[in-house]
């Protein structure tokens, strides 16, 4: 029998790269001085809304739309009869509803102001990767700060602008679809967004155009008490294809901030839209987002959604399957650490024959983190050949971690097929033991196991996002064991 000494000696040469080493954890904890040219102050009144509309030089119909939305927002109660009471801790009077650099989007990297470049530096994007990510449209606070992919795709007739520009320069197109997928009164936070939205993207892909590279935008929040209310509208015309990616990291602030976006997708006949999100909000952010797409005949909408961080995230990407043979998919990964609640899920509304939907959700609860899956699958009567498949898997890391699953499935008629499955488990102890035997620390082994748990979903992300995701999981898993 070998002694412990020889065993450890033998193991020494096995160099295990610590995936966490070398990553500065204070990154992302920064706050930056920015000379805000436009600032609507804190609190929300009719004046705030008028101010935003005036700064953006908007047409009267938009101002009316905003004012009406404000009324709806005020009239709607907090949805605390089903959602967490934590929502009551949002102090709407302490939030800044508009803040902008007041700059026009920049064309080249050189034109981007140095202070903004510095912010990206802190994001930890290496020089090489930055070149690789040359197509990034970086949104700094409410307005787009950098964009050059626009020129490339413009040659194909693709419109890729921020929502303010979209409203100004393509009003017919914008107005036709704007607020149609997610009406103002959909929920309290969609109403809030409709009143104070700024930033976000407007994309139109013409008939038959397949956009080769993904369109990207990085979002950041960079002012205390500053809520970000971006509004994104993507229209994929018949037979076109587009992938959109957004990612966020945010500085940590002492008081709560609110992020409440609205994202509307329209996939016309035979079109395909893929919308990818990797987010890592600071622990004090309320992230209350409404995302929904309408898929027309034979169209396909796929949401790939990864939620890490935030104090409370409530996000249920949805697809309204409006045309025959339309397809909807939600791939969701959520990781909740101490003090975080990931309340995420999916919504599939079948509204035509032979529509199919697929939901795969995986969540990880670490420490006292809480992850919740909430879903709706609705198949009304007189439809036939509709199918839904839902799978929810939850992984609990610590003894005090928490997970919930609240699906709601309605099926009418006998010609449709729906199945839902969920499971809850912990990391297999034998697996951890095996890896520890081979020289990994418990933390590394746990991190590897968690990455393995989400691997089949993470592989669906573009390469650089799945790298970022792995890095984020490693960071989150640090200190969760031992």
């Amino acid at each position, binding site marked *: 029998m070998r002694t412990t000494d020889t065993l450890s000696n033998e193991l020494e040469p096995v160099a295990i790269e610590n995936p966490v080493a070398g990553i500065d954890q204070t990154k992302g904890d920064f706050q930056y001085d920015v000379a805000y040219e436009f600032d609507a102050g804190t609190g929300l009144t009719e004046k705030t809304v008028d101010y935003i509309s005036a700064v953006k030089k908007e047409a009267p119909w938009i101002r009316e739309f905003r004012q009406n939305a404000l009324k709806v927002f005020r009239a709607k109660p907090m949805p605390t009869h089903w959602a967490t009471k934590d929502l009551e801790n949002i102090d709407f009077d302490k939030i800044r509803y508009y803040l902008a650099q007041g700059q026009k989007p920049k064309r080249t990297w050189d034109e981007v102001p140095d202070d903004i470049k510095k912010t990206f530096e802190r994001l930890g994007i290496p020089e090489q990767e930055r070149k690789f990510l040359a197509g990034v449209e970086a949104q700094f606070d409410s307005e787009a700060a950098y964009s050059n992919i626009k020129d490339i795709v413009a040659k194909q007739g693709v419109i890729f602008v921020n929502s303010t520009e979209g409203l100004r320069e393509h009003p017919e197109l914008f107005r036709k679809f704007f607020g149609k997928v997610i009406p103002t009164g959909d929920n309290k936070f969609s109403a809030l967004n409709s009143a104070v939205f700024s930033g976000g993207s407007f994309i139109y892909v013409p008939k038959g155009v397949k956009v080769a590279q993904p369109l990207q935008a990085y979002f950041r929040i960079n002012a205390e008490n500053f809520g970000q209310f971006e509004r994104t509208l993507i229209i994929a015309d018949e037979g076109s294809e587009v992938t959109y990616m957004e990612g966020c990291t945010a500085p940590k602030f002492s008081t709560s901030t609110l992020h409440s976006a609205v994202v509307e997708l329209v996939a016309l006949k035979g079109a395909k839209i893929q919308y990818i999100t990797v987010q890592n909000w600071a622990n004090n952010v309320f992230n209350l987002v409404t995302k929904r797409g309408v898929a027309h005949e034979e169209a396909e909408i796929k949401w790939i959604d990864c939620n890490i961080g935030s104090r409370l995230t409530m996000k249920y990407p949805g697809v309204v399957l409006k045309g025959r043979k339309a397809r909807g998919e939600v791939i969701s990964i959520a990781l909740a650490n101490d003090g975080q609640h990931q309340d995420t899920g999916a919504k599939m509304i079948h509204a035509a024959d032979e529509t199919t939907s697929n939901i795969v959700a995986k969540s990880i609860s670490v420490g006292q983190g809480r992850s919740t899956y909430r879903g709706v699958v609705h198949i009304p009567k007189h439809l036939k050949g509709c199918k839904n498949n839902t799978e929810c898997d939850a992984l609990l890391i610590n003894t005090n971690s928490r997970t919930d699953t609240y699906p*709601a499935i309605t099926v009418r008629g006998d010609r449709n097929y729906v199945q839902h499955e969920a499971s809850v488990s912990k990391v297999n102890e034998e697996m951890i033991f095996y890896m520890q035997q081979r020289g990994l620390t418990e933390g590394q082994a746990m991190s590897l196991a968690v990455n393995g748990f989400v691997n089949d979903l993470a592989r669906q992300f573009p390469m650089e996002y799945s790298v970022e995701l792995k890095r984020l999981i490693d960071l989150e898993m640090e200190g969760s064991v031992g």
Partner: protein
Amino acid sequence: MSASVPSSTARSPLGSFTADAFAAHLASLDGAPAWWLERKRAAYERFAALPLPARTDEAWRFSSLQGLTLDGFHVGTPAEATQADDRIPDLPAALARPDLAFTNNHLSARATTPRPAGVVVSTLTEAAASHPELLKAHFMAQPQKLGSEKFAALHAAFVRDGAFVYVPRGVELAGPIVIHHRVTGPATAIFPHTLVIAEENAKATVIDLFYADARLSLPGTAAALPHFACGANDLYAAHGAQLTYVGAQAWSYETLSLQLNSTVVRRDARVQSLNLHLGGRQSRHESLSQLQAPGALSEMLALTVADGSQEFDQRTLQIHQAPDTKSDLLYKNSLRQTAKTIFSGLIVVDPDAQRTDAYQSNRNLMLSEEAEANSLPGLEIQANDVRCTHGATSSRIDPEQEFYLQARGIPREAADKLLTFGFFEEVLNRLTDDELHAALRALIETQFE
């Protein structure tokens, strides 16, 4: 839904159960102990203070609230019970000889079956005098967590009588104890109750059969009458006890039914419950299982045959309060015509309930284009070393099987019946008592006549 149902604006929170009706009910109770009356008064106050379920109540999501009217009923009286004919419907052997039979909440028949010493099969009224401490400790003693607090209070206020079953330590009963709850007369409101206490290592099977005259085709009875049934049962399995409970519900097609179950399972005890739902215009069944000590097991089964415009609303809660407990839920619904079912289940694993093994499954067999199945299978897990899974499916059968039946010229109605029985077999097979299995099959057959 029938046209006679008032709109939601007409719903009154008390309905027919006014303070006067309650006073009359109390006055009709002879010789009830003071503590019992005191409890009833407190329950009536709770009932009167609580609002009717509202649209925004999560516990009532998908339920048809406009059908939940308490108006137009009267509390069944002893006179009605004695006037009703005492025939017992032609039932399968396992159900035909009740140990206790209640008509409109009054004892109308009892059998004198010899039982081992110490076994009590009596009425609640008798138990209030003979076993007040047991009744105080177990009668509706568990929390109402599934949305029907108001109806639980209504039940406690107006319950006149019911069954009380006590099986002492170590006693194993061979045959089942059968209890009939029958409703008769138009617009009658009844409050059936069954309380079962299985002491340490005791073993028993208890069957509740709920029926209306018309539903089980007693010759010469009138067509379906509207009734209101607001029932409850309390099951308690002490250390090592084994309790099998079957509730078979065959109310009239015009009945509004609420049935509230509570099951407490102690260390190494095992409770198997199977609820069969056939009758009612709108039937809600709430079932709460509390697994309170290591080794506890609760098996929760239900079968529903929903047809016409019936609505069946089933809400379940499996609470794992201790480590090493197990629960296994399987609810199957067969839906025809414009029927609607709701299954809302929740598994709760408390922070210290490590090594919980919980399962929850809802399967809906859709047999018509108009039927509607709603599933809300939920989990709330606060311990990490657990095995919890749930599943829900809604679909028609495999097209190949359907083609097989069609190819042999089997008519739709007969095919539905075959498919339903094939679908239910998995649940019925969990019963170890073959005679009981056959009796439930025979009851299910009545739904296809």
